[in-house]
């Protein structure tokens, strides 16, 4: 029953022109929501929240670092769900959306790595620490890049998408294993480093900006995904009548 609903829903939305209309309407709202959330979040993060007694102001970096890290992983989960749907039911829209998750996820992984490294400089005294989380993130970045590269290397985009979807699912199985192995490896090789957020040691006053930024980042992911998927759809269908119609309808 629920499977059928999903399938029918995607088929209905999956018609290219209707997805085009849907995304054109929805994406600006998501961008606006992101702008609102991030303005509030950044305001709280930089002006309202008091400095940490241990890390002083450097912990404010975490308000961009942590939501990006969460989104980098959540983005992979979203991509895997879309990829599974694409492989099982061969729905083109989910193929495209799964593929378009990769560059956005990679962007968040990159933010996470860069800000983590910047945070580490004052805290650990080094730009790079073989910390379990940073190392797994680095590996995740390469998985994202691999998916993007694989998709880009095919001329037949539908074939490329399906092949890359297999890789997405292989990655899904592998990421927990990689994470576990890296954690195991770092605990064997080094002493404890400062935890980015200690176990539930975060004061409740530090929470609001984190929540706002997290919501904002999620909205942004959705908006960017819709925009990219819409472009990909236009590119793939550029010979078709519905795209021609859009071209001639628009006066600009």
């Amino acid at each position, binding site marked *: 029953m629920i499977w059928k609903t999903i399938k029918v829903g995607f088929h209905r939305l999956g018609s290219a022109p209707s997805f085009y209309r849907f995304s054109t309407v929805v994406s600006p709202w998501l961008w606006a929501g992101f702008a609102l959330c991030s303005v509030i979040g950044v305001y709280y993060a930089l002006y309202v929240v008091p400095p940490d007694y241990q890390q002083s102001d450097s912990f404010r970096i975490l308000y961009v670092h942590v939501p990006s890290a969460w989104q980098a992983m959540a983005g992979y989960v979203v991509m895997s769900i879309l990829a599974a749907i694409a492989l099982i039911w061969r729905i083109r829209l989910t193929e495209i959306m799964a593929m378009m998750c990769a560059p956005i996820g990679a962007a968040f992984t990159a933010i996470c790595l860069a800000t983590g490294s910047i945070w580490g400089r004052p805290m650990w005294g080094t730009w790079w620490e073989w910390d379990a989380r940073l190392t797994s993130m680095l*590996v*995740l970045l*390469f*998985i994202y*890049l*691999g998916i993007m*590269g*694989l998709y880009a*290397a*095919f001329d*037949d985009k539908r*074939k*490329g998408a*399906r*092949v*890359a979807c*297999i*890789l997405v*699912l*292989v*990655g899904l*199985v*592998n990421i927990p*294993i*990689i994470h*576990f*192995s*890296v954690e*195991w*490896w770092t605990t*064997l090789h080094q002493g404890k480093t400062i935890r980015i957020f200690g176990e539930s040691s975060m004061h409740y006053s530090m929470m609001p900006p984190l929540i706002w930024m997290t919501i904002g980042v999620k909205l942004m992911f959705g908006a960017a995904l819709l925009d990219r998927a819409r472009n990909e759809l236009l590119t793939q269908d550029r010979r078709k009548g519905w795209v021609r119609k859009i071209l001639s309808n628009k006066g600009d």
Partner: protein
Amino acid sequence: MSLRALPALLLRDLRLAVRHGGESLMPLFFLFAVLILVPLGVGPGPNLLATIAPGMIWVAALLASLLALENLFRPDFEDGTLEQWWLGHLPVTGLVMTRLLSHWLITGLPVILFAPLAAQMLYLPDQALGVLMLSLLIGTPILSLIGGLAAALTLGTNRGSVLLSILVFPLVVPVLIFATGAVAAAADGFSPRAHLGLLAALLVLALTLVPLAVTAALRLNIE
């Protein structure tokens, strides 16, 4: 239904490897290139070499396995022999496993056979040698499986080799960690069992999932 197809394929693959001669010796050449170049780079100190020995031998095994991947399915794809796999009476997964076995025999086995020599050259403590061999024995088939998957995924593209390395690298991280961890533990006098057990679990997981993924990827790519 005859199972003669599998040994026939294996024999043909090995015969082709022998006929290519130089190419099939590349894995060994790689092993020895690493063995000679790294001490030249870091200095001949026995302590340092002994510490990095497991990592070096394993990286050499990984490179050897990577090296032969471009030729795993591509020549068959181009001369039309690969599509014949779908005409036969045998499930393609069986043929995939056979092909991966031949890859392992060409790239993994030579490294295992010469590992004792390499271990001596790098002053690996004697008590770690057995564990090194065991880790190679369990781990190199995983390298072949993961490499085969990457080769199958990139088959339909025309710039396969760079992509291949990008795809393989993240997936082999756990193998490298557990395998070298086992050897290092043994060298330091600790029990390598936990590492080897995890490595074996990885092998089982890879053996069950990878051939299916490879078959699906090949099927998509011959379209």
